[in-house]
């Protein structure tokens, strides 16, 4: 057996002839088939590798800005509701395509929903008090922030913080897992930046980023996590963890959110439709080996007539709905795996980071009693894929270097980095065109592909709204003149 050669992400080593030729490699998390060196290398699929590769991609993408789609999404209102006059409710973000030679119709799509779309100066109690930060308590791990207003079981926190269950159904708290930041000083004010100064004192305001862990709707309390929090200090620096809770009397906003369609982020193995480097380029019928099928979630897309429709191309006037069912086997041909939730094991702050935990569902008596999709994102909570790392590098914050540097056998990391740099330059100048031709021949561009089986689940995670409220006709993308139409 020999290690894979060539410049694919995750291939650290040159060809090495092992003496223990019969050792079967461990199946990879990146769906590259196998991890060739997993027996002899430590931490092969580390966050560090994603972080480093993300930087390389960020630089490469940043030059050309190809497949960059800023969008504005006007939220539809429920049936029977009319949109009041004035500014429309919008969600603003960017979709970035990453051409790839391997899977998923040739292009991975990564999305960013920008910051400050949801603002807590729009949270009102029953008598119209705005939900600023009124007070807080804390323990070793969390801040408990009470919002201004009068809250009770009769007047709980409003949607989307808390949506009561209908007819005995389960209550929803879809904002759990979002990043909150204390960046609005006065109602309807402009969000402050790390550089904003108080004119009275000429010192910076500073702000805090932290993760929303839980919501106590009857007492108006938000539970915020200290671990992994982030602070822009009055010195103009960024520190983590934050040294203070969100400031009293400010209004919270929701921070940026990211999602990606790649195998790493979705934790899925895509079916292999074709390979550009095949000796004979041919279409393949997507299939999944029976041995690869697992019990778990199946995402079903139906069109407006109720028919199952998994086409990659969609029609603008035929919106699709997404249904999740976990009482079936996987979607053969599209995915080989259901994905999962991959969190860092940070439940006990102060302790060193232990092994990652893999939480997908809870089961009792061979029945799945609760299914948790991959909702909790951001900060350091979820392991990003290399594409999201690339977008985060574009934020301009030099992300902290993950400490799980992969330790390999013979070749040093310096050689690997040098090869990586050359490889990315080569891909950008020679191979991307081919990947693009292939990708564009398989799938549409945004917004037309946004209801494809790959993108709709990703978009639901990104926008954090029900899939039925993701409507193609509500997307405005930038035209060639720079305006949104």
């Amino acid at each position, binding site marked *: 057996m020999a290690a894979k050669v060539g410049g694919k992400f995750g291939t650290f080593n040159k060809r090495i002839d092992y003496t223990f030729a019969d050792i079967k490699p461990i199946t990879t998390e990146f769906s590259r088939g196998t991890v060739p060196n997993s027996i002899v290398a430590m931490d092969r699929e580390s966050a560090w590798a994603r972080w480093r590769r993300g930087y390389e991609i960020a630089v490469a993408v*940043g*030059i*050309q*800005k190809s497949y*960059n789609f*800023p*969008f*504005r999404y006007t*939220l*539809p*209102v*429920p*049936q*029977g*509701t*009319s*949109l*009041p*006059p*004035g*500014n429309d*409710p*919008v*969600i*603003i*973000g960017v979709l970035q395509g990453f051409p790839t030679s391997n899977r998923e119709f040739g292009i991975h799509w990564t999305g*960013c929903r*920008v*910051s*400050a*779309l*949801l*603002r807590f100066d*729009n949270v009102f109690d029953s008598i119209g008090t705005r939900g600023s930060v009124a007070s807080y308590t804390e323990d070793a791990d969390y801040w408990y922030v009470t919002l201004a207003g009068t809250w009770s079981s009769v007047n709980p926190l*409003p*949607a*989307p*913080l808390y*949506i*009561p*269950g*209908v007819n005995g*159904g389960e209550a*929803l708290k879809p904002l759990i897992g979002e990043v909150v930041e204390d960046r609005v000083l006065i109602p*309807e004010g*402009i*969000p402050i*930046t790390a550089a904003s100064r108080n004119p009275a004192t000429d010192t910076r305001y500073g702000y805090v980023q932290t993760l929303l862990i839980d919501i106590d709707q009857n007492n108006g309390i938000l539970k915020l996590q200290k671990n992994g929090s982030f602070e822009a200090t009055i010195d103009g620096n960024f520190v983590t963890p934050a040294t203070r809770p969100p400031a009293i009397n400010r209004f919270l906003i929701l921070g*940026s959110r990211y999602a990606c369609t790649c195998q790493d982020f979705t934790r899925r193995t895509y079916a292999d439709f074709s390979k550009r480097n095949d000796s004979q380029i041919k279409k393949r019928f997507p299939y999944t080996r029976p041995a690869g099928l697992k019990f778990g979630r199946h995402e079903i897309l139906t069109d407006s007539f109720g028919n199952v429709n998994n086409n990659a191309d969609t029609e603008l006037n035929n919106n699709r709905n997404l249904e999740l069912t976990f009482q079936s086997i996987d979607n053969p041909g599209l995915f080989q795996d259901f994905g999962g939730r991959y969190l860092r094991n940070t439940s006990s702050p102060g302790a060193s980071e232990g092994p990652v935990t893999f939480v997908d569902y809870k089961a009792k008596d061979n029945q799945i009693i609760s299914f948790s999709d991959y909702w909790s994102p951001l900060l350091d909570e979820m392991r990003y894929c290399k594409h999201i790392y690339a*977008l985060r590098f*574009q*934020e301009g914050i030099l992300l902290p270097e993950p400490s799980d540097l992969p330790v390999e056998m013979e070749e040093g990391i310096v050689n690997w980095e040098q090869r990586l740099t050359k490889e990315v330059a080569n891909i950008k100048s020679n191979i991307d065109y081919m990947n693009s031709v292939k990708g564009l021949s398989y799938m549409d561009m945004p917004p037309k592909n946004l209801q494809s089986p790959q993108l709709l689940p990703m978009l639901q995670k990104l926008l954090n709204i*029900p899939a039925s*409220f993701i*409507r193609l006709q509500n997307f405005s993308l*930038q035209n*060639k*003149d*720079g305006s*949104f139409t």
Partner: protein
Amino acid sequence: MTVEFGDVVETRYVTSEEQLKRSQFGFSPVSFSGSPIVYTPGDVVHLPYASGELSTLEAVGLAWGAFSSGVGPNP
């Protein structure tokens, strides 16, 4: 500088001349004023919804509430 509704308050990613030049692909004429890349990862936008308007937060709440009771969006 006055920040209008929907404007970017803070962008972490400034497009250079070189990037603007290279982002003009194809042969059709492309015209734009200012930076054509409006929203980038890490941006913070200014959306000060006034009273009477439906804010993004309230609209997201309505959407999840409708989902919870089995109601779809307005066609």
